[in-house]
Each structure stands twice: as structure tokens, then as C-alpha cells.
């Protein structure tokens, strides 16, 4: 696909590696949005759901893949099927709920019926079709590539996309640290929040992957008032030592550690499971982990926030995943899930859910502040008045080619924590995909 088939894009360069600057116009523009859909969202692996959302045969959730409504189904054979949520006959939406249990998809218009393997079972008028009609060719339109990594389900419309393992690459090491650190892995704690933010998906993605400078300014409220596990001095010290890590493919994570009692703010009964499941280099991180925040390219982010003291001596951390679904230029629908270890007690899971939603998501005292600021950017980045006055990520430059040597995980780790390195690398990767003519 060429650029000429879209609305015109704002003038290049969008990213200037030499000055560490980024065009303002890429954050709310119809041409950019259309090109992103073609070059990134219709070509990449994208997150769809977690296996724990569709645990039993017949379970379904409805999601979007590169803007297209899809059904994510647990098939009768235990596999995962992902289909365009549209009847093969005349296009009517087949699954008209957020989630549920259904072994068959019956079109409400003319009664075409499909199995959860996508096969057409009946048109109700099979006898009226011409002789020799091959009904096996009239099944649901499948998402051609579906794969999972330790419970995380991804799909791609791109038949040529490389293996999911290659897309995630070294970043799997970090995903394990949060979503597969016990033998049973993670489980969702209920359906996702859904809310609409007038912000570009990249603004959200780079905030999580990772804008480490905004923490103290934007989140001064909860950092001042909430009963976090560490005092301000400890947090400031930890932020000085923390690393931001970038792995090939635009993924990144920031890790804040505070040495002390191992796994100090994780449930006691899970400590032996972490020891058993993770390798020693991962355990070194998790034992002291205070905050982890990340973006998996392009639009999946997660955060395990600083523990809060919810009762005397009792600390709980929220683990949240969120997807920034682009719904138009400068506009996203956010899906936000809370997670906990499958082996965690019912009490802990409840506490982790409460912790998660009170801090993050549409009602969270941290995130309610982020979205206010993100959503004020769009109007101001659209104007040609900003041409020649790009956004500034210059703090990325001094250390961009200077990773630190003392980080035990894969990828390139950087300090200072507050420099804009991983954000800029995310945008450099974006720029590469957007400007290279696809093969």
C-alpha cells in the first residue's frame, strides 16, 4: 500500500535522530492514522485477550483487531479461534455481546449457523444452493494468524507476519516476570474496564514505555497522600538507581527496585513459586521489585504499581494490563484488566483487584491525572503552527548508545531513569515501520 491512497501525511521528518525531536503532527492526524493502520496495525501481532478470559469450551469475548470487530472463542477442541465478527452470508454481526458462552454462532438475520471452529453448520436452506456448493468454503472469516505466549493471545491479519516468538523476542523474559512467574501463570480478575480518551495511542504507549519524568509531577497527589510502601526519600533514591530497558521491536520496560526483604510486597505463599518458576537473573529483579511499567509494541502496556499498605503491615500491589485501541486520529478506547497469579488466594486476588482499580484505570487516582494531560495534547499538535517546532525528547540523546552493564536481563538497559530513551526508541521503531516501503 502506498501513501497516496490515504489522506496526506504531515511533512517529514517525523523523527529526527540527531536532535532527539518528534513532529507534533504525528499525534493527531488523519493521514498518519491511516498509514499506521496499514503499516503497523494490519501488519503486526496485536494483543487480543488472555486465555483465562475464555477458560471453558464455548467461552467467547469480542474484541477489535486493527479496528475490525472479532470474536475470540475457546473452541470445543480446546483451541482458540478468532474470526471476523460478521456473518459470511450478508455481514451481520454474529456475536452481539462483550462476553458469554456460546458453542454456536447463529446469525440473527437469516439463520446461518457456525461452530466455534468457524465452520458453517447450516444455512437453514442448504437444499436451495446449487448442486456441488462447497459449504466448507463458507465458514467464518478467520484471523489468519493466532498465537499465544504463556496465556497471552495475539492475532494478526498479516499472513506473512513472522512467529509471535520473534515479535516478542527478548521481551518474553520481562513478560514472564509479571505474567508467568508462577507455574499456573496469571489470571484476569474480571472483565476489562472500557473507556474513551481523546489522546493518540502513541501518547499512552510512550507514557507507559516509559515516561519516567512525569511520575513525580503528574502523580504528586497519590504519592503525597497514599500509604505507599516506601517514603518519598526511598522512592527518590530508587528512581535514581532504576533502569529503563529497551528490546528490539520497540518494546520497553522500566524497573524500579528497592533492596530489602525478598519479595517483600508479594504474598508469602507465592514466594516459593517464584523461586521455582523464574531463573536466577529474573529472581534478582523480582525479589526487590517496587514498580514495573512497560509497553509491548505497538499498543499493549502494563504496570505493577508500588505497593500500598492496606492494613497495618499488609501490602498489596495492583498488576494491570491495558490496550490502547486506536478508534480515530487522536482518540483511543482503553481496555484495562487487573491480573493476579492463578495460585493467589481468593482474598489476595480480591485485594489486588481493589488495589488495581483504585490506583489505575478510569477511576484510579494515578491514571485520572494522566488522561487529563494526554487529552490536552491533541488539539495542540494538529496545527501546522507547530511545524518546525517539534516535540523535544533530547534527554534521550546523551545515553542512547551508552547502555549500562549491571542489568541482569536481556535488551539494552539505560540510566538515568528520567531520560527519555525508551520513549524515543519506541518512536524510532514506529518511524522505521512508517517510512520503509513494505517488501
Amino acid at each position: 500500500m502506498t501513501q497516496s491512497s490515504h489522506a496526506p501525511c504531515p511533512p517529514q521528518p517525523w523523527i529526527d535522530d540527531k536532535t532527539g525531536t518528534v513532529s507534533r503532527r504525528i499525534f493527531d492526524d488523519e493521514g498518519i492514522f491511516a498509514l499506521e493502520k496499514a503499516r503497523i496495525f494490519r501488519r503486526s501481532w496485536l494483543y487480543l485477550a488472555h486465555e483465562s478470559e475464555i477458560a471453558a469450551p464455548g467461552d467467547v469475548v469480542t474484541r477489535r483487531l486493527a479496528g475490525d470487530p472479532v470474536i475470540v472463542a475457546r473452541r470445543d477442541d480446546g483451541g482458540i479461534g478468532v474470526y471476523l465478527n460478521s456473518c459470511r452470508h450478508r455481514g451481520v454481526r454474529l456475536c452481539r455481546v462483550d462476553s458469554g458462552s456460546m458453542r454456536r454462532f447463529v446469525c440473527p438475520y437469516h439463520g446461518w449457523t457456525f461452530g466455534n471452529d468457524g465452520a458453517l453448520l447450516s444455512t437453514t436452506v442448504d437444499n436451495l444452493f446449487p448442486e456441488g456448493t462447497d459449504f466448507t468454503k463458507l465458514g467464518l472469516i478467520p484471523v489468519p494468524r493466532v498465537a499465544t505466549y504463556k496465556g497471552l493471545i495475539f492475532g494478526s491479519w498479516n499472513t506473512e507476519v513472522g512467529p509471535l516468538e520473534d515479535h516478542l523476542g527478548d521481551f518474553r523474559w520481562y513478560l514472564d516476570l509479571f505474567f508467568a512467574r508462577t507455574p499456573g501463570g496469571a489470571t484476569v480478575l474480571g472483565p476489562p474496564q472500557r473507556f474513551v480518551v481523546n489522546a493518540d495511542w502513541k501518547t499512552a504507549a510512550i507514557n507507559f514505555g516509559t515516561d519516567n519524568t512525569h511520575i513525580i509531577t503528574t502523580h504528586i497527589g497519590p504519592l503525597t497522600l497514599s500509604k505507599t510502601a516506601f517514603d518519598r526519600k526511598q522512592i527518590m533514591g530508587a528512581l535514581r538507581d532504576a533502569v529503563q530497558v529497551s528490546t528490539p521491536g520497540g518494546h520497553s520496560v522500566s524497573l524500579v527496585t528497592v533492596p530489602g526483604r525478598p519479595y517483600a510486597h508479594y504474598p508469602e505463599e507465592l514466594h516459593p513459586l517464584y523461586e521455582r518458576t523464574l531463573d536466577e537473573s529474573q529472581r534478582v529483579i523480582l525479589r526487590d521489585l517496587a514498580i514495573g511499567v512497560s509497553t509491548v509494541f505497538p499498543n499493549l502496556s502494563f504496570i505493577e504499581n508500588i505497593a500500598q499498605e492496606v492494613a497495618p503491615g499488609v501490602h498489596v500491589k495492583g498488576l494491570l494490563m491495558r490496550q490502547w485501541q486506536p478508534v480515530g486520529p487522536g482518540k483511543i478506547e482503553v481496555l484495562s484488566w487487573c491480573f493476579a497469579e492463578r495460585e493467589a488466594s481468593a482474598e489476595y486476588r480480591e485485594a489486588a483487584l481493589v488495589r488495581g482499580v483504585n490506583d489505575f484505570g478510569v477511576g484510579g487516582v494515578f491514571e485520572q491525572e494522566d488522561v487529563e494531560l494526554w487529552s490536552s495534547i491533541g488539539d495542540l499538535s494538529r496545527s501546522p503552527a507547530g511545524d518546525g517546532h517539534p516535540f523535544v525528547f533530547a534527554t534521550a540523546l546523551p545515553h542512547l548508545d551508552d547502555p549500562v552493564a549491571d542489568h541482569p536481563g536481556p535488551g539494552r538497559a539505560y540510566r538515568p531513569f528520567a531520560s527519555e530513551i525508551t520513549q524515543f526508541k519506541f518512536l524510532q521503531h514506529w518511524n522505521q515501520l512508517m517510512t520503509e516501503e513494505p517488501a
Partner: protein
Amino acid sequence: MTASPHPTTAAPVTDAEYRAVCEFLYDEAALLDQDAYAAWLGLLTADVRYRLRARTLRALDQAASTYRVVDNNAEELRIRVGQISDPRLTFAENPPSITRRHLHNIRVRAAAEPGELHVTVNVLLHRSRGVEGEEHCYSAQRHDVLRRTDDGYLLAAREVVLDSTVIKSMNVSVLF
């Protein structure tokens, strides 16, 4: 969950009590409309719980579900209020949203707990914010527990269920 967690089979309260409850609710809503948070906190019991949820879409014959948005105990509710009422600690509510709470369909029943009342209220919360005058209107049902004390009623619990599956505002930094 769609059904009211409050029993509707219990006998209605007396006219005098119903009227007193309504006046309490209107006065309380007026305090929130005016961002008079210090006075509003004075209407809460020490063990108050404040919860907010929204809906998910399920088939007619399948159990409805919700997702949680806020689940504050008394201390966390006070922290939330402390944040949105301090100009040094919030951007979401500084400048503050302009809000108006409209309360309807008020049903009051005696609770099993002596001295407590179950109150179900339909709420429209209109919110205007930002220099562009962005407006949001939330429709919700509220399930309140009021406790009678020597100083009048206090709010012991509030559970808000938004009548939405997708929340069309970026945050819910206002109280219902």
C-alpha cells in the same frame, strides 16, 4: 449484577422518615455539587465504603456482569477526596469539574441492621470540564446505606452502578 442489592420487599418507611432521607440526600448532593468536600466528609460514617462499577453486555439468558471502577474503604475515600480537593495534588480536578447531581426514583427501606436504611436512587450526574466546555452525563443507580445517629443520618455505604458498558469520558474523578 443488575438487580438492586437492597431488598425491595421490606416495608417502606414512614412518610416523615422518607422525607427526612430525601432532604439528607439532596443536602448531601448539594455539598458535592459545590465541591464542599470538608462538609461532605462530615456526613460519612467512620467505616464508610464507596464503590463504583460499570456494566458489561451479556446475552438475555446469561448472567449480567460488571467491572469495578472504584472500591474505596473509608481511608482511601478520604485520600481520594484529599487529592481532588487540593490544588497542589490534582490536575484532573483543578480546575474542578462543574457538576450537578439529579436524584430520582428514591426508594427507602429499613435495613436488617437496626438503625440503618437502604436507599436506592437513580442519578444523573452532569459534568462540564475543561476550557473547551466538554460535557459528560452519567446515568447510574446508587445503592446507599444510611445510618441513623444522634446527629442525624450518616452515609455508611454507597455503591454506584453506571448504566454504561463503555465509559465515554476519560476518567471518573468526580464523586456520585
